């Protein structure tokens, strides 16, 4: 590990922190310019029976009548010191709220990723080795099919079939093993499509290489050829796609959590958006930014170690050639 690498790593780290802070400020501004303020929306629910005067008094007590910049400054300085404040909606500490929902989402997202990887590998394997007359072409259509069926439709079909008809899991025990697995399948199916697409393209590319032909000539079996020779070189770009899939897993978890009656970051965001619960929203957006930045940071820090041809600091980055190089790079430019 040389000094060039270390200063590269340091620079990436500073960038990461700036991104997180900017995400925080951006959320604040966006929510602040939305019509209405959070407290008023709750108080104006006619069932509350508050008069306009009472509402104004409560708003003043919450400090929501102060200039927006003052509010931002207070929020930002608290954030930097790690104080995420109280939820405006429930008056409970934001850190508690997040700690309650995070494990469930992490379990769902990681299981979903596992499902996606297994499914992608199975489809990719099939496209290489299932004979054409047994539906190889059909398998190649799977990723597009997976992408075109909405997440919630998959979820509802799974629940009605396996939950209500076959009774394999109970919706009300949404954190049980089987309920989690089926939620992960609903979440993983669309994600598997992207991974499968890249994997198939790379396998096609590698399968045409001379070494593959040689291996086949030596009479190597299909499974060994796939596992030992083709999969490894095809997988490197998949790392990039997985980094992107993290976003999709977190985003998709909102719908999956709603459909499967799970509590998680997704449902917390949904509740917070509908009530404009600023402290919670900011914390969640910052959390998402942290996850994205970390995943990308790891990818960026790992790449030069894996492949010495990758240039450090500025300059065009060089990655191993893949069929999906372009799409992968554009998305990375957005997230970093």
């Amino acid at each position, binding site marked *: 590990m040389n000094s060039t690498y270390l200063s590269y790593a340091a620079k990436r780290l500073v960038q990461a922190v700036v991104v997180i802070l900017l995400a925080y400020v951006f959320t604040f501004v966006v929510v602040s310019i*939305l*019509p*209405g303020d959070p407290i*008023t*929306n*709750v*108080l*104006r*629910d*006619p*069932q*509350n*029976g*508050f*008069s*306009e*005067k*009472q509402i104004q*008094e*409560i708003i003043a*007590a*919450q400090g929501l009548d102060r200039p927006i910049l003052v509010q931002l400054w207070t929020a930002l300085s608290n954030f930097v010191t790690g104080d995420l404040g*109280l939820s405006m*909606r*429930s*008056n*409970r*500490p934001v850190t508690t*709220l997040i700690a*309650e*929902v995070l494990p469930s989402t992490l379990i769902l997202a990681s299981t979903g990723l596992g499902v996606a990887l297994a499914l992608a590998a199975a489809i990719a394997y099939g496209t290489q080795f299932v004979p054409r007359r047994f539906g190889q072409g059909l398998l190649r259509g799977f990723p597009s099919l997976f992408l075109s069926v909405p997440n919630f439709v998959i979820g*509802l079909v799974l*629940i*009605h079939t396996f*939950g*209500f*008809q076959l*009774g394999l899991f*109970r*919706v*009300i025990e*949404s954190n049980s093993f089987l309920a989690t697995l089926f939620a992960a399948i609903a979440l993983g199916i669309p994600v598997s499509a992207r991974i499968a697409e890249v994997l198939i393209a790379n396998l096609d590319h590698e399968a045409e290489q001379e070494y593959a032909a040689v291996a086949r000539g030596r009479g190597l079996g299909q499974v060994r050829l796939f596992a030992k020779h083709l999969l490894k070189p095809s997988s490197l770009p998949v790392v990039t796609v997985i980094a992107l899939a993290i976003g999709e897993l977190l985003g998709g978890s909102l719908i999956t959590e*709603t*459909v499967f*009656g*799970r*509590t998680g970051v997704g*449902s*917390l965001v949904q*509740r917070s958006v*509908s*009530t*404009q619960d600023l402290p919670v929203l900011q914390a969640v957006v910052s959390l998402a930014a942290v996850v994205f930045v970390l995943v990308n940071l790891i990818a960026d820090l790992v790449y030069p170690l894996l492949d010495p041809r990758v240039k450090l600091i500025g300059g065009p980055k060089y990655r191993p050639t893949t069929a999906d190089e372009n799409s992968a790079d554009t998305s990375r430019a957005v997230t970093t």
Partner: protein
Amino acid sequence: MTKRFSSRFLSRRRLLITTSAVAAAALVVMAGLNPVQSAGVPQNGGNITFLIDSLGSTWIPNNSAISSFQGHIWGHVTDKLVYVDADGKVSPWIAESWEQNDNATQFTLHLKKGVTFSDGTPLDASAVVANLDIWYAGRRNEGINPIGLFPKTYDRAEAVDATTVKVFFKATTLGFIPTLGYHGSILISPKTIAQPASQQADLAKTSGSGPYVVDSWKEGDFVKLIRRKDYNWGPAAVGHTGPAHLDSITYKLVSEPSLRVAAVQSGQADVAYNASPQELKSLKEAGFTIATPRYLGFVNGLAINTKLEPYNDVKVRQAFQSGINRKEILDTVYTPDWKLATSFIQSNVPGATDHSDLLAYNPGRAEKLLDEAGWTKGSNGIRSKDGKQLSLTLYSNPYLATSKSIDELIAQQLGKIGWKVYIRAYDVVTFGEKVKFGGPAVPAYEVTRSFIDAGTVASILTDANNGENWFALGESDKKLNELRDKIASAASTQIRDPLLDELQKYVLEQGYFIPRTQIVQWIYVQSPKLKGEVYNGIAYASYYTATISE
């Protein structure tokens, strides 16, 4: 005869044989017929799951709105001073009896003895005073709100002795006692009340005196309640005062309505809240219990902005009143569980009177009134006057799922008599921002609203005491103000009821309020195994008296 019989036949040995035979037979019979025989006697035990679409936003007892989702939990975890049933009838609960002075400004409450909160604190006079004080004033700078619908005339409360509380008001407050039976007025342990808002927001740290206590909960996920074994002070009105029968009640959040119903159908849950009215018929046929309790409050209808043209013209408003076919709304949008409006307050509210005649569908009368008001029909079937079209914009209430369908039907009905109706459907946030009673662009504001006591109605309609001024009349309508003042100062229901009747007739005649239907705000789809639940005055199901058969 008996004596002889016993002396001859009942030797010790025979007695032994006979009793064991009888005992054996009884055992066999009981084993076989157990469910039938015990049908009349509630059985203890069992757990139920109630699927709900939301659990609201905060658990600070004061801050939950009067008819919000948390009411289901509070109804089991806490008690109230009085019980108000589905007909608005007030009966003793924690307050065993009460008296009031002649002009209803002073009340004395006598409390039940031996009641305790789940944290061990006694529910005595000082606990009641602490509750009354925070209901009225809250602690705003700490984020604890007053209860919006608690009488603003409250002065103070005093603990006379351990079981007697005296409550003083600055003006006649006939509605005070019924107020104590509503959702907001839940009795909370003084220890909980003393806690800061962030502690009160943790449901597990809140102690009430109800038949259930919170076992565990997770925000946005579930709340599990378990039975309190020493509970012995239930309201006599529900026919049971001891501990609840069910061991536990779990409220589980499932936001997708079809999943809630499907889970009950497949036996995975016992109650599904808020199903769509269209599904109810088939569910009923499949043997599920459907409950559509009404609550005490205003009917679902439209408050007219009398400042806005052409709705400042009484003839146009009256045409509107006669131009709506309310029967068709029930037949098309709802099921027979819904009822026709007979006034602008629900028919189960004490003091509500039947004014169906004023609400009859009469398109001929409507057309005649519009002709008289100078709105003439053009070749396109739309009426106009001085080059202006007769138009109406309806803002569908985002709090009521069926609101837009009703608006669409009203648009058709009014369309037939020459009205051009536009419909705007906003989300809750935008609606709250843009649509207000008497707003400059809002000709008709849709109301769905429960209230505490019919006496408060009058001041909501006008702008007296920070009233909401529904019809934008201000102080301009002398008759309405006169009725309002008389109703507010009435010291007994005997004096008040005829005045309320007059108010209802006047408001409907003037076309200030256009009722649509009586409202069923909540729909319960329940497994046939679960029986014996009770619905209170705001249509919450209480499972305190319920039992479940396996």
